[in-house]
């Protein structure tokens, strides 16, 4: 997670929204905690929505399956 965290911070620094989508989803996939996973998926979804990224639908589906949206 430390390496991923550094990548996330770097992506935030350079305002690389496309990178943030994948990095937040990766963070969600690494987490075993339900709330933490939905937290990271939410961020991935919001950035995908902002960019009109094709991942938005898939991420929305994951959150819906978790009852989080």
């Amino acid at each position, binding site marked *: 997670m430390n390496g991923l965290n550094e990548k996330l911070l770097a992506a935030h620094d350079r305002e690389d929204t496309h990178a943030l989508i994948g990095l937040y989803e990766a963070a969600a996939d690494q987490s075993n905690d339900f709330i933490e996973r939905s937290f990271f998926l*939410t961020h991935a*979804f919001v950035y995908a*929505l*902002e960019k009109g990224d094709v991942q938005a639908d898939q991420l929305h589906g994951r959150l819906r399956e978790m009852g989080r949206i």
Partner: protein
Amino acid sequence: MATDLSGVLRPVAKANGLPNEHYVDDGIFMEERDAVLYQSWSGIGVTADVPEPGDARPIEFLGMPLLLIRDKDGDVRVFQNTCRHRGMVLVTEPKKIEGAIRCPYHSWCYSTKGKLVATPHVGGPGMNTHEDMPKSDLGLIEVPSHIWMGVIFINASGTAAPFEEVHAGLLDRWKEFDVPLYHGGEDSTFTLDVQTNWKLAVENYCESYHLPWVHPGLNSYSRLEDHYNIEEYGHYSGQGTLVYRQLEGQMGERFPDFPNLSDKWDTGGEYVTVYPNVLLGVQRDHAFAIILEPKAVDRTIEHIHLFYAEPKVDEALRAKNATQWKTVFQEDVFVVEGMQKGRYGRGFDGGRFSPAMDGPTHCFHDWVARQILGHRQKVAAE
């Protein structure tokens, strides 16, 4: 302070202009904002400001933060540029909305049609809904807008009758120009930052009386007697010419005409103010809009845009045309700034109007005065 407007409402031959306070007093400026500029259909920009779907441009209109946006279906919309959550301004610089408008504060997201589409963590960490936060109730606040002659008009108060109803007379008068207008692009737009009250720009634009004195270059072909007044009390005013002469390039090239115009427009041109703040001009081969942005009681930014009958017209001729109009409009600056300075003279009583020549200006004053008086009655009744 409530000014005495009875003198304005007399017939033009006996009337006085609006009192000085309407040009120098901050309180009256705010009253006019509410009574005149917010209550009516005011111009705030042109559709060319947001040419492509997803283009968004934040503007302020008399302090109100607005967002011009062309939605995903190509329709131009105007929203209050304020998040429905904690009131954060959403967009601070022109940008392309690729997917959704994301508030930079808590990341609530809106579609380009203003629909609230995401409320991250609104129900707690990772929980993106809450039963008391229905998205359908919390879309962006849309401001009623209307597009005409390439100009975006809004009714900030939301209380005006539909644009087509308010301006039915002018729309009918100029129905021949209800055709696609193509903005000339970056070289066909410019701004003038003028130290004057917004109304003085309207007043100067409405009348032809000043032309031979302020624009002597026009005298050679456009004499005072070749002009006529346009004055529709309660609606609009301006002036027309019978001797519009087309611009020509070095090889005699001209701009293409708007299609299917009647003979009237062979040498005709008309210059009308769409009350309160949009100055329009139409001729056979191009049109223009001047959108007055009141910044303060004594400061106005004029946004000038030139439009043509076809998307791509001759570049050199286009530049020549922009230069010609810029010269004319700059010649007017000392006049509107001078009238502004003159209104600090305490004995000035609003001035008198030439019954023959100043009807269009009085027509505007009469309209402004009636808007204000109507507003005062409403406020008094509340």
